[in-house]
């Protein structure tokens, strides 16, 4: 057992630190504090990463990846989170990109991959439907062949940032006379096509992240089909094998926990700092202990992958435990804010209000509830673990 980094890995860590110090500073970091700046900041950040060759470090080098080992990826993630720089938007770089380079044709690779790397296109994911959530294979959004086009009719829902999107990668039904999984195709849709309506869905944090997307006779060229017709389910599933470790969010949770400690030292109740409150100490240490363990669960997965083995059975708990911890931190922050956690600040300054983070705590808590629903709900994750790990 050896948890030391090699000389080369330490040198890489220095390089990452130097890059972050330069790239995540000044204008961009300042802009990130302003409301409504999300897309602008993400695009700016991803272009800086792309200049460095780090926009999609885990892609194969021939498509623009950096050839990082799992350990290098871990080092980058730790350092990135420690300075509070954002993760990349996942839809292009972590989701559709790998599907295109794995299953797309040369023309598709040349057309889309460079634009994904440079954040020239903003992507959204068209998987869930009003009638197909955890049971995704029951999706009904239909694509019918008409000459050189598919004609799309149906609806997608919970589509994150569809309002910003130039493109959607979408699962559509191309055959209804077979097992549900076998009649699904993976297709790329230009969001400017006629017949697409994007309807905002305001979530419980009072923000507009999500949308319903409705397709009415939308014509998509057949050249936008990825791989073979009716093989889309296989391609979508292969996505799950990519970037499995980062889903635990360990590095970001460490940062949030350390910020929470600072807030708790400043928050006073009856003359006593909340960090000295026994109930608070019990709750924060519950979270910290789980996180200390999860950090090493992630390292165990990385060590196994570095040897060229699969990620190992312990990888199945990364999302379940990671999201449980994320939510617990947000919950504790909301409670720490006391009655200011109920505040909708809406333009009033912290000075006028008399409190600094209540509004953010409320939004963070409410938004964090999604973490145990998206990407396979807790219950689905447990079903999968029971079947494939425990053999039940």
């Amino acid at each position, binding site marked *: *057992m*050896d*948890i*030391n*980094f090699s000389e080369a890995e330490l040198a890489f860590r220095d390089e990452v630190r130097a890059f972050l110090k330069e790239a995540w500073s000044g204008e961009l970091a300042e802009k990130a504090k302003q409301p409504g700046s999300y897309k602008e900041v993400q695009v700016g950040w991803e272009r800086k990463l792309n200049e460095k060759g780090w926009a999609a470090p885990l892609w194969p080098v021939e498509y623009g990846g950096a050839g990082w080992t799992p*350990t290098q990826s871990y080092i980058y993630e730790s350092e990135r989170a420690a300075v509070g720089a954002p993760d990349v938007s996942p839809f292009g770089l972590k989701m559709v990109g790998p599907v295109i380079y794995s299953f797309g044709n040369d023309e598709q690779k040349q057309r889309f991959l460079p634009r994904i790397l440079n954040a020239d296109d903003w992507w959204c994911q068209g998987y869930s439907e009003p009638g197909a959530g955890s049971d995704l294979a029951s999706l009904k959004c239909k694509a019918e062949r008409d000459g050189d086009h598919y004609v799309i009719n149906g609806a997608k829902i919970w589509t994150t940032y569809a309002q910003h999107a130039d493109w959607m990668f979408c699962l559509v039904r191309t055959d209804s006379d077979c097992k549900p999984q076998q009649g699904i195709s993976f297709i790329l849709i230009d969001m400017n096509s006629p017949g697409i309506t994007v309807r905002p869905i305001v979530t419980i944090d009072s923000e507009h992240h999500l949308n319903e997307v409705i397709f009415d006779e939308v014509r998509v060229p057949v050249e936008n089909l990825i791989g073979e017709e009716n093989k889309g389910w296989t391609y979508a599933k292969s996505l799950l094998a990519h970037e499995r470790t980062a889903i635990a969010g360990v590095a970001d949770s460490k940062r949030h926990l350390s910020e929470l*400690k600072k807030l708790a030292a400043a928050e006073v109740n009856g003359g006593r700092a909340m*960090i000295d409150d026994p109930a608070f*100490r*019990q709750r*924060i*240490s*519950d979270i*910290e*202990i*789980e996180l*200390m*363990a*999860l*950090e*090493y*669960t992630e*390292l*165990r997965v*990385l*060590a196994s992958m*570095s*040897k060229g083995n699969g990620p190992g*059975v*312990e990888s199945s*708990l990364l999302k*379940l*435990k990671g999201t449980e911890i994320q939510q617990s931190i947000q919950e504790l922050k909301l409670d720490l804010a006391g009655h200011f956690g109920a505040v909708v600040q809406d333009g009033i300054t912290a000075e006028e209000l008399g409190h600094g983070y209540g509004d953010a705590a409320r939004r963070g808590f409410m938004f964090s509830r999604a973490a145990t629903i998206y990407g396979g709900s807790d*219950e689905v994750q*447990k*079903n999968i*673990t*029971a079947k494939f*790990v*425990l*053999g*039940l």
Partner: protein
Amino acid sequence: MNFDFSEEQQMLKDSVARFVQDEYDFEARNKVVANESGYSQENWQKFAELGWLSIPFAEALGGFGGGATDTMVVMEELGKGLVAEPFAASVLMFGGLLQASAQNDERDALIGGVIDGSIQGAVAYAEAQSRFELQDVLCRAEADGEGYRLNGEKSLVLNAMSADKIIVSARVSGEQNDEQGIALFLVDAKVEGISKTALRTMDAQLVANLKLDNVAATALCGAGEGLGLLKQMRQQVIVALSAEALGIMEKLNATTLEYCKTRKQFGVAIGSFQALQHRMVDTFMAYEQCKSLLYRTVCSIEQGEDNNDIEKNVLALKVMVGKAGKLIGGEAIQLHGGMGMTDELDVGHYVRRLLTINAAFGDADYQQQRFAEVSLAS
């Protein structure tokens, strides 16, 4: 970075696993604990021959010179077999304290005796009122010529009935909870003035309450050093007991999973029910998280990290192992249904050992408060 065992560590692990598999099934184990001494002298000699009793001792003392990883792999496998031989009490606690105390010929000879299996030892640190506080010591030591005389009482001393020598914490000066003034003393287990009341704990271990009436003793350390040595021992033994607990948890999860795959109700295996599947996923995750934290702790010791960082890991580990042990133990009984309640099934015996480990050297609630102190101060 890797979490692989060295070839030597893997061989050690395999040799303990082989012993458990070939010679220590549940029936054999029950015969062993029914002995008057609570363990088998024959097995103990075998442990000595296999070199296991030498693991934590320096090579200069005739030991194996093993580190935290070596102890971990042995304890984990002993846990799977619910092995009752007093490895922790005699080798890790008694032997560990001897090794940490000042060198002299008597000490070296005793360590040699522990290694060859001829000496059994015990450590008497707890008292009736002390709960988990090592510095809560009423037992007193007074100088008497070159040695000392001990007066007082000690509680629930592991391996006291088989021990040839007992290390006793006693107060040379100060009041009940003072951190200063505690020293460690070596007494002969059969010396005049010592009386023992033997009893069994729920995990079938034989322990004893001691009454010390003017008992002759020699000092192992100065009055300023006793508490520090006890704390150091506690840290090492917590890691070892956590490894034992991990082995037990693995065994319980495997047994329960197997039962749920074979037990049929309503015409199907009960493992096909989602309510049970999700509970088994929870216990699987609890086990994996304990394993990760154990590895984290052992790595921090092996890398020689700052003692504050090691202590933080050790405390986190003790908390998590205590809580996960209760979860996994409770679920193992529940999912076995009525059978889980029976003494003839091994499940309840493993669960009782987990509960005993939780209470040893500070339970999860107590250690979580100490963890918060370390973690929130940093």
